[in-house]
């Protein structure tokens, strides 16, 4: 089962973090949240046993893409699911492909769809 999988959710909006944290916790995941990229990098260390990261693309100071690049430097293979509120998803698609991020979900997301992707990546 999915038990004991640790998921880090990065977002600059607290309410969104809360919704995702609540949902995934309910689904039995161990959820860590980071309000912004800097926080995320603090949490994230080679030693931290995080299994999946859910990243928002548009964040102040350090955007999602830059964060993912940093993540890839630390955790080359960790599954990353990208959320975005931007309509310009096409603009990021290539870059995300390069950074090995295959999942791009457009806000507002269907939570069940998110769960499906998470389960798929963790399997």
């Amino acid at each position: 089962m999915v038990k004991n999988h640790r998921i880090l959710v990065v977002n600059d909006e607290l309410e969104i973090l809360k919704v995702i944290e609540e949902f995934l916790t309910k689904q039995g995941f161990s959820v860590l949240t980071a309000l912004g990229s800097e926080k995320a990098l603090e949490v994230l260390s080679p030693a931290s046993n995080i299994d999946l990261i859910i990243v928002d693309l548009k964040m102040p100071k350090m955007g999602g893409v830059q964060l993912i690049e940093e993540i890839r430097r630390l955790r080359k293979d960790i599954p990353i699911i990208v959320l975005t509120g931007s309509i310009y998803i096409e603009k990021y698609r290539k870059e995300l492909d390069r950074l090995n991020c295959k999942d791009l979900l457009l806000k507002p997301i269907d939570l069940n769809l998110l769960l499906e992707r998470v389960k798929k990546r963790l399997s």
Partner: protein
Amino acid sequence: MPEIVYSKFWSEAFEAMEDFVFLIDKDFNILKANKKFLKFIKKPKKDVIGSKCYKIIHGLNKPYKYCPHKKTLTTKKPQTVQFFEPYLKRWFFLTTAPIFDEKRRVLGSLHWAKDITKEKILEQELKIQLERFNRFCNVMGGIVVALDLNKKVTFINKRGAQLLGYKQKDIIGKNWFKNFLPKRVRKQTEKAFESLISGEPRTFGSYENPVLVKDKKEKAILWSNTVLKDEKGEIIGTLSSGQDITQLKKAEESVLKAEQRYREIFELAPQAIVVLDKKGRVIDVNKRLYAWLGYKPEEVIGKSLLRLPYLPAKSKVKAFQMFSQRLLGKEILPYELEFTTKRRERKVGKIDAVLVRDNKGSILYDLVMISNITEERKIQEGIRRVRQEEAVITSLLRLSLEEVTLEEILDKALGFLLSLSWFSFENRAGLFLVEEEGYLTLKAQQNLPKEVKERCKKVSFGECLCGRTALTKQIQFTTSLEESYSLRYRKGISQGYWSIPILSGKKEILGVITLYLREKAHPDKSQEEFIKAFANVLAGIIERRRAREELEKSRAFIKRTLEMAQGIIMVLDKEANIIDVNEYIEKLTGFKKKYFLGKNWISLFMPQEKESLEIHELFKKCFVDRELGCHETEFLTKDRNKLTISWYISGVRDEKGSLLATIAVGVDVTHRKEAERLQRLAQLGRLVGDMAHEVNNPLMVVSGRAQLSLMEEVSPSLRKNLEIIIKECQRAKDIIQRLLTFSRPSKGEVQKIDINRSIEEVLGLIEHQFNLANIQIKRNYAQELPLIEADEKQLQEVFINFLNNSKEAMPKGGLIEIITKREGNFLRIDFKDTGQGISSEQLEHITEPFFTTKEKGTGLGLSVCEGIIRAHKGKLFFESKEGEGTTATVLLPLREGGGGG
């Protein structure tokens, strides 16, 4: 005497009369006529007696005008009259005598007529001869003497008598030989006289014999003699006429003197005089001829006309012709002849000749007088020359005004120059121009030998004759091209070469004219003056031509510049009518230049009245205030592209400030406009994107919370509410998502597609649904259309959009016609509906994002469509008429980049 006897006597006498006798009563009736009369009249007695005398004698019907009978009756006296009766053609001597009765009353008259015709004729002839003779003898300068056979003088004329010193009567009747001839010749002349009167045949001639005059002196007389004969042919005497040779001898002397005088005149005459014999040989010449022509008389006398050294060949012929004409007796007016002096100078003489004949008409000699008119001719020639020179200059100037090239002018200029006959031109000439600094280039020539043409194509300054002329800017003349000239032409022939510089107003060398002169010819001062004037005129023409060429070049440059200019340059009149425009407008609009010419700028570019007023103001400003006006207008090209043109309008004024024209410079700012629009769209897109992001986050929270709540046990009503919240969040998300498409910068997946098939695919999805809405779809596809490269999914989205719009425009149903065809380099697709249509104002904004006429529309559909078509480098436009329908048209380029947009 008894009456009977009396009457018988009379009767016989009457009949015996030799003359014509007849009696006429007072009524002119012939009572009695003798036989002689009847015989003469040649009429029977019965016809004569009783007839009127005037009828018988005069052939008249009334009494004769001069009838002596009448006079006889009235005067009662006899009448005598001589008359010529034309009726009878006879002369009569008539005597009439009246006959009385016993009471001395006149009963009639007796006519006694004598025919005197013969006598009358003799008398008249004699009279005439005598008159003639007297006239002859008296008028004659000499002596006329008639002798009878007894040597006595029967006649001597007055002059003859005077000559002898006597009166005529003193001589007549005297023996001629004894009294009037010297003794020593008496015998001899008497012998001659006798032989003359004996009728011996002899030759008549002249004999010189003296006569003895009153003072016993002798006079030499030249005699000629003849015999006088009577009517029977018998010699009755002699007639001699003599001429006083004393006078003749004197005359001879005076003639001699006259000849001397003539000689003096001959020599002193202002004319040269040549005397020719009838064969045309020179008999004599005067000294004037020698003075004039340099030929001594002995060089000329004895020579025939045709061998005279002072006549050039042409003159010889003419002189001979004229001489022959004179011989033929034709009157010859004075004529001109050319002469050559011994020094080979040309002279002109006026000939006045006269053929002198003796009194018998034989030709004695031909007197030829020659007046020297060389100077006169020179002056005349000078005048003619000046006139012709003027004509040459005028022709040259006239030529320069014609539309001919400079080369043609130069060519003709040389021709003009060589046409001047008095110049000793050899009909060879060359004309050079300086086209390259320091070099002459041969531009025109006449009859230059081939080698000269080759050699002189290009001559450097200072080289040869022409080069020297160019270098020194002075006229050069030489009689031969010796060592120092690089050109050899007819070596050894002494010839003139005359080279004239063509100098500009600033004394810069423009070119050189070089002329070949005939042997020994040397141009004089006036010729030099002329050639300088000619060169100056030519210089003027060359300079003007060059200036014009420069001007034309710069004009051409300006024209090219205008044509090359990437802007419309229009010349407008004060009413803003288009006078001229550059060709760029054709490239820009697709309409031909002439489409614009004459049209009004305002009505063409600013059709709306409101704007028109505005533009009028603008024009006014240009005209009055000299301000630059600027305005933007729109214009639909032939390909139906909407152009935005930015106009800069300014007045063109002369130096005094008067308005000449208005120049409207139009710059195509369509692309800038489009760029601006795209920029605006991009800004909008960014805004929408940013907004979307900002909106999506709260939507995410709302939707997420709702989803979380749904995961819990909730009442059915709450569940329903939550579900609606989630669904509306999703809809908001979709709306935002669609904003993505219209600002999408490029095509997606490109492949070669068949447009008809693509449309059919779309129709396959919607046709059933449309038919249910009572909408028919009519296909009008062109077959075998080329494939186009396109993103099919995107194009289909466009088509669906059109179809949906049409459907919404036809709530009660209608027809949609789909037309595909090739149009130039484009593929054209029309979607034509029969819907309600939209207003032209709305049509302008139809593709703007968020513009919608529909209650439920987002206003993104057509802006998305436009984005797609633009990404395909195609065109999208709409035509609509309210109440009739709308046509949406897509033009897609057949080749990548083809047609551009």
